[in-house]
């Protein structure tokens, strides 16, 4: 069985350590993605794995044979590399370029045999680039060029295929086509690719190696390696999981983190539902408050968001009526909070208890009603009771129409609540 193992690899350019103690392995039938921010050493790692750069310490081995102990020709029959770019001052035809992949199999004065031509044709076919056969490589588009480069690598008949950002500079369709191609190839050979797109890694890779400053920050199943905290830690961005109805794996959406001015000690309880409290939850958490949310039905977007943001939540089964026990817990949580934020939400019999608890807190705890409208009739599915409760809240608590306003009202009500105080 083919195994590519990277064991304790350390590499430096001059005195700058680029890779330190990188260890992982790749097995046959796997598509492995190497991810990490710019300058974290991905390309260097690829070059070390390919045997182009010699590590200062550690070993890269193919099927147990150390890469530096292999003759360059033998190595070239074992592994092929698709570089990020292809540059040549002179024009070559696609077919001649692909045929060049047979170099490690041919002697100095030996001409290509029919077998070599067959393999080159097959490689073009595998890479779905047959139609480019007679074109000149200088006139290909980015996607076409990538296919042709992959075809040359395949003409080497490698057991291991290494690629450096094969989807860079490609449009979305070509990106997906290349990723599908790699996925198909990985059934027969080991495929390792440096990749920038986290969602491609999640959708296509069997395993991912997450690099950070030249060290392995995570290695394994993409969904668990590319967790929200890991992405925040390594890339410095917030990520949010979205389920595509057709794709098996959730995709991630990214945002630059909101500035966290200070840690606040104040606790805010958010009452919402039906997806109406998402923005409130997001803003409060990022403003540094300790946020809890309840009572949310399973399957509610607000609950997904609260969980993704790491908030404590009170939950109820889908579409159930919130029972008295849950209502009491909510009341208890309300009392433990410094303020309550209520999102104007559609209210039916199932979640009427939420609104009742909120109203029972009027005068007891500072409340801010987050509402973009003043007519609550549309939200009322209880025959008038909810509308009355909303009206009471609107009259006797603060109202905010925007998230920024909500944050200002809270500061007005409970002070800045910063940790330094």
């Amino acid at each position: 069985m083919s195994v590519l193992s990277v064991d304790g690899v350390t590499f430096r350019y001059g005195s700058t350590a680029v890779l330190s103690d990188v260890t992982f392995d790749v097995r046959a039938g796997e598509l492995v993605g190497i991810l990490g921010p710019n300058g974290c050493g991905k390309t260097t790692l690829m070059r070390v794995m390919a045997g182009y750069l010699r590590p200062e310490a550690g070993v890269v081995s193919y099927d147990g044979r150390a890469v530096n102990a292999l003759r360059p020709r033998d190595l070239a029959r074992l592994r092929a590399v698709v570089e990020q770019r292809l540059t040549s001052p002179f024009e070559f035809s696609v077919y001649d370029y692909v045929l060049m992949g047979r170099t490690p199999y041919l002697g100095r004065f030996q001409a290509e045999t029919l077998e070599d031509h067959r393999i080159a044709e097959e490689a073009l076919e595998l890479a779905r680039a047959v139609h480019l056969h007679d074109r000149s490589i200088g006139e290909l588009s980015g996607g076409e060029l990538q296919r042709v480069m992959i075809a040359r690598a395949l003409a080497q008949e490698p057991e291991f295929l290494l690629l450096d950002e094969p989807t860079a500079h490609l449009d979305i369709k070509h990106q997906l086509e290349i990723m599908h191609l790699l996925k198909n190839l990985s059934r027969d050979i080991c495929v390792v690719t440096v990749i920038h797109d986290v969602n491609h890694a999640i959708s296509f890779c069997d395993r991912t190696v997450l690099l950070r400053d030249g060290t392995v920050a995570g290695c394994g199943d993409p969904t668990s390696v590319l967790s929200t905290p890991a992405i925040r830690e390594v890339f410095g961005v917030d990520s949010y999981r979205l389920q595509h109805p057709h794709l098996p794996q959730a995709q991630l959406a990214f945002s630059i983190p909101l500035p966290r001015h200070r840690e606040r000690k104040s606790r805010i309880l958010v009452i919402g539902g039906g997806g109406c409290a998402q923005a409130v939850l997001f803003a409060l958490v990022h403003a540094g408050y300790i946020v809890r949310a309840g009572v949310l039905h399973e399957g509610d977007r607000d609950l997904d968001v609260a969980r993704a943001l790491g908030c404590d939540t009170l939950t109820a089964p889908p579409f159930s009526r919130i029972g008295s026990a849950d209502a009491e817990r909510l009341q208890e949580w309300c009392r433990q909070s410094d303020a309550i934020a209520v999102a104007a939400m559609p209210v039916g019999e199932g979640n009427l208890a939420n609104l009742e608890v909120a109203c029972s807190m009027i005068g007891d705890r500072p409340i801010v009603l987050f509402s973009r409208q003043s007519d609550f009739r549309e939200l009322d599915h209880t025959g008038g009771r909810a509308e009355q409760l909303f009206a009471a809240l609107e009259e006797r608590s603060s109202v905010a129409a925007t998230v920024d306003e909500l944050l200002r009202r809270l500061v007005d009500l409970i002070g800045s609540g910063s940790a330094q105080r």
Partner: protein
Amino acid sequence: MRHGGVFAALLLILACVGTSSVCIGESSIDCGTVLAIIRNAVLGGEPFWSPAEETIVLLIRVPRVLLAGLVGAGLAASGAALQSLFRNPMADPFILGISNGSALGAAAVLLSGVSFGLGLFDLPLAAFVCGTLTVLLVYELARVGSRVSTHTLLLSGIAVSAFMSACTSFLLFTSSEDLHQVIFWMMGGLAGRTWAHVYMVLPFISAGVFIFVAFARPLNALMFGEESAHYLGVQADQLKKVLLVVSSVVTGAAVAVSGIIGFVGLIIPHIARLLVGPDHRVLLPLSVCAGAIFLIAADTVARTVIAPAELPIGVITALCGAPFFIYLLRWRGSEA
């Protein structure tokens, strides 16, 4: 084999140009006589020509044509290899400063009147040694540890060249000697060259060309960069050294016997590439043929156009080569 037709055509042209060149001159000799003299020299037979004609053909024109062919072939092959090695279409055999180094050596010998006791070969020897030393210097300056980046090599080549050129200018300027000889040498020429010169460069240039062709496939891989070549199992570092050494020796040998003949090493590989594409397995042999044809033709023009005086051959190569190259470029451009 692909491009077999182009090859056959070029070999035919080479034969024709070579023979015509022997025929043409101050005293023109008809083609049949020339062929008979040559056949006679190899196989023996009854002469029907004058002894003067035989002397002109065998001792003056044939060696000169052969030498022009060898020098043209060597320069063109070196140019083709170096263009790919440096991945730079502007590269030529003189890119590592060999021309200016050799010129300095030649100028030093001619102006100082120093003799190594080799008579006719003092000048070629000095040129060859100085040219080779210059390349070594360029290489050493560009070397960092065991690696040499082609980029630094190119730059140190330019710097060292400029320095050598300045030294030569200084020598010329401060010298009280007649400079005609030095300048004529620097412009390149094959006047008065003999069989001895042919024997002197034949082993270097033929071995060099053979080695270039032997490395044709790795050279193809190298065209896409050292990293890319490495991934195809080509030992780029080693290949680079081999190519540098071989092209320096070939160019050095050519410069030693003919002076600095520009343009051939730069343009012939491009013309060959326009004809058959960049595959070195075809390109190198083709450049060899085309280089030989071109230089034989240019030399013939150089020695006939203002006879009995001679033009420097470098003047002819640029004068004829440049318009032809431009024509080819335009022709290919309009085709695409």
